[in-house]
């Protein structure tokens, strides 16, 4: 992509060997190139569309909901999908599933994205610090991180949530704590790689301080891979958050949340299997969309020489 500099071309045929000084070849920035490649990737576009639709539905739920998600009805319990007035059926207390799924998306998506964003910031900072410092400092930081890493993430999340008590804030904290070591590890390895590269050596030879080098050279090259990894964690976070709610450690009823809904509809799995599976379907759809998007992003970010 070329953009012609301010000098006006009378006939507009800037592409036909114009004078060199009149034309500035500007390469698209890395971000622009990644975006363009993503736009050409049908899988990435589909995943983005699904994620966008889910987010819009969740945010606009109060205005789009066809019914009150808290209104119970003992008479209309566990209606199948397609019942008039209950487009996606009703749950074990006769509440409208569609409304609850839409409103529940708010918490579920929030619990998927927020811990990862927080862990991205904290984990990257720790990992980049360790990676760039190297030597003993790296050793010290990374061995501390390894202690957290030694626990299976589900167990760690449950243990932390259990210790902190139920509730959204505590679930958020425990999930962040689960992801920080994972992101820090990735950040550390890409930073170590960047630190040993010739361009960082060259920057050091220019007389730049460590702060400037990290800010100008390292950060640009490491945020991409860390971001891709973090994107793939969103699905894990959603599933873990749903798991915490399932165990009663996250959201409290009657607040709708996909994991919690899955739990309470468990008993109805033989009577209304499709209705009972709906929250799970949404969790699956969101996770796989984020994973596919992360994959496409990773491919789009590769610089071909």
């Amino acid at each position, binding site marked *: 992509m070329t953009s012609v500099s301010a000098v006006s071309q009378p006939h507009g045929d800037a592409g036909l060997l114009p004078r*060199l*000084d*009149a*034309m*500035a*070849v*500007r*390469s698209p920035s*890395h971000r622009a190139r990644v975006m363009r490649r993503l736009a050409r990737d049908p899988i990435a576009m589909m995943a983005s569309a699904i994620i966008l639709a889910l987010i819009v539905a969740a945010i606009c739920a109060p205005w789009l909901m066809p019914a009150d998600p808290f209104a119970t009805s003992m008479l209309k319990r566990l209606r199948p999908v397609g019942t008039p007035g209950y487009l996606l059926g009703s749950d074990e207390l006769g509440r409208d599933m569609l409304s609850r799924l839409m409103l529940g998306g708010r918490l579920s998506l929030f619990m998927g994205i927020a811990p990862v964003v927080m862990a991205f910031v904290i984990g990257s900072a720790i990992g980049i610090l360790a990676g760039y410092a190297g030597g003993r400092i790296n050793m010290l930081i990374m061995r501390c991180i390894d202690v957290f890493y030694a626990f299976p993430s589900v167990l760690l999340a449950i243990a932390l949530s259990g210790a902190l008590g139920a509730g959204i804030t505590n679930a958020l904290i425990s999930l962040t704590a689960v992801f920080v070591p994972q992101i820090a590890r990735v950040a550390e390895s890409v930073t170590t790689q960047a630190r040993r*590269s*010739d*361009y960082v*050596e*060259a*920057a*050091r*030879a*220019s*007389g*730049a*301080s460590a702060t*400037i080098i990290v800010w*100008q*050279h390292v950060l*640009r*090259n490491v945020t991409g891979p860390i971001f891709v990894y973090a994107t793939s964690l969103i699905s894990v976070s959603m599933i873990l958050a749903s798991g915490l709610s399932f165990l009663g450690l996250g959201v409290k009823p009657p607040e709708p949340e996909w994991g919690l809904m899955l739990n309470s509809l468990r008993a109805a799995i033989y009577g209304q299997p499709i209705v009972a599976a709906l929250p799970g379907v949404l969790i699956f759809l969101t996770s796989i969309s984020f994973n596919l998007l992360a994959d496409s992003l990773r491919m789009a970010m590769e*610089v*071909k*020489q």
Partner: protein
Amino acid sequence: MSATMAGTGNLPRPLMRVRNLMKHFPLRRRAIGLGRSSVRAVDGISFDVMKGETLGVVGESGCGKSTMARVLMQLIRQDSGEVVFDGRTVGDRTLPLQAFRRQAQMVFQDSYASLNPRMTIEDSIAFGPIVHGTTPAKALDRSHALLARVGLAPARFAGRYPHELSGGQRQRVNIARALAVEPQLVILDEAVSALDKSVEAQVLNLLEDLKRELALTYLFISHDLNVVRYLCDRVIVMYLGQVVEIGPAAEVFDSPRHPYTKALLRSVPSGDPLRRLDAPPLSGDPPNPIEPPSGCRFHPRCVVAQPVCSRAVPSLTDCGDRHAVACLRWQSGSGYSPASDIGGLPPIRTVEVSHA
């Protein structure tokens, strides 16, 4: 040091003096109780770089050329020894690292890896001046001027990324980047080795022109002896982290004194198919730099070695014409008996063309 290059006649003053530079990389202990061994990458190197000269450094792979370059740039700190630049010790209060790095710059071998893939080349070149306090606008101006000087029209190239350029173009960018802080000394670490021969010649000519215009001093590290002969005023021959011979390029190439230099020069393939070597001039790999041979480090591979060579360590001895060599043969009173000197190297055979 018995052979100091400065002070003999009206020579130009040294821009950089390197004294007893030492860099050992420690290795892991192989077993408890065993001492810690180390790779002696640079093991006591001393030389001067004269202002305005091109000083070549040659030697086999792994002889410590690149480590030396990195230590000279202070990218790695030496274990001992000092680098004196323009009369001031590098890293001292009189010449802090930051100030030294305005005076000396380096061009790396890998033109792609040494440019930040996420930065446009104009930004890469402007980075150095900005670090040293130039305003971004002025730094960009300088970056464009330098791009033009190294033969890359700024209008076409300034906004490009490294992966959009060819190897030769990238190395021109690296040269421009090194020159952006207006250094006096440029260390070229195998800077043209990775380029095609035709591109290499262009870049070498560019380097020569720039040197003349900007009154630069080059430290040219290479394993390509032909290039070194073409470009350099003086040459240092390194073997296993030490200097074995140093002198004017013409002297070293035409009348090499050290058997290693002789062998190295013999290993350059001749353009004449009728002149052939029957045996390789140097056999075997260089010895392990972790446990270098006793005495003269070259003695296990040397064709004129005598028993004394495995005991006595030769020191760099002046042999006239600013030429110094570290070989017991040239050191009087070393115990080496010149009587038994029998030429040594396999002769070059001139093939008789027979029409059988």
